[in-house]
């Protein structure tokens, strides 16, 4: 049973980590756009 929960948990950990990188990229992009508008 532990292996089952580990597999499901790791699956979501991988997906959530990737979504986290997308959010980080999105925020960085927003900052870059704001800087470009300032210039």
């Amino acid at each position, binding site marked *: *049973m532990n292996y*089952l929960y580990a*597999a499901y948990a*790791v*699956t979501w950990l991988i997906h959530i980590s990737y979504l986290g990188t997308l959010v980080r*990229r*999105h925020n960085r*992009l927003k900052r870059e756009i704001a800087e470009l508008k300032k210039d």
Partner: protein
Amino acid sequence: MKRVFPLLALLTAGLLGYALYQALVVAPTERTMGDVQRIFYYHVPSAWTAFLLFFINFLASVQFLVRTNETADRVASGVAIAIGVGACIAEFVIRPLPAGMHHGSIATTGLAVTALYFVIHKLFSEPSVDILAQVTAEVGVVFCTVVLVTGPLWARPVWGIWWTWDIRLTSTLVLWLIYVSYLLLRKFSTSGETPVLAAALAVFGALDVPLVYFSIWFFRTQHPQPVIGGGGSIDPRMMRVLMINWLAFLCFAFLVCWSRYRLERVQRDVEETQALEALLEPRSAVQ
């Protein structure tokens, strides 16, 4: 579009929750493996989703390479049509088929290839098709990582080992490495030819996808037989849960690809603007 996305995200979250409930509670317990078999409901849909994404990456890469040349574009379109027609007439040409293969599934797959090729051709322009290739490779690698992690977590209690250098496992690892190298090339290469090099790598990399998929049909392997066609079989209730989970992961992959695609478009626009600014700055300094 901005209104549709949150709605689709909500529906997908609901579907993923329902699929999880089906996998953990509703699906019957397998007699010999017990509950650990339920890993299958995440492992197999993730593999199928990764294959589909890598296949879209292949079609997008081919189109990126051929669209600059009108003749090559026509030849590629002709090949796509020939694949669909060939798959439909395979019934009359290839007899007998290898065990487990069916003429109906060959025709469906062939027609799906042709349809997908022309859908991409119609919906994506030349720069957009390069973005599509990049995005599908990235999300495909995420799903392939899930496959490579959940596989050993199933194998340890069932086989007694985490990993074996069996053809299915090894070819999947090679597939993952090919697409990771594709993403590294895109990230770190500063050459103006990077999209072309990446597309060429993707076309060759995609050759590993059928090898991974058919390895358990043609080679003696420790990996279980395919549950659709092939030598394996599955309880219809398990098949239903498997399909619900695949649908849920497909919807999830579609939404992630959509967000990533929009992000990449904006990022490229920003980079273009920054490059233009950098070009203009020295001139204004001189003036």
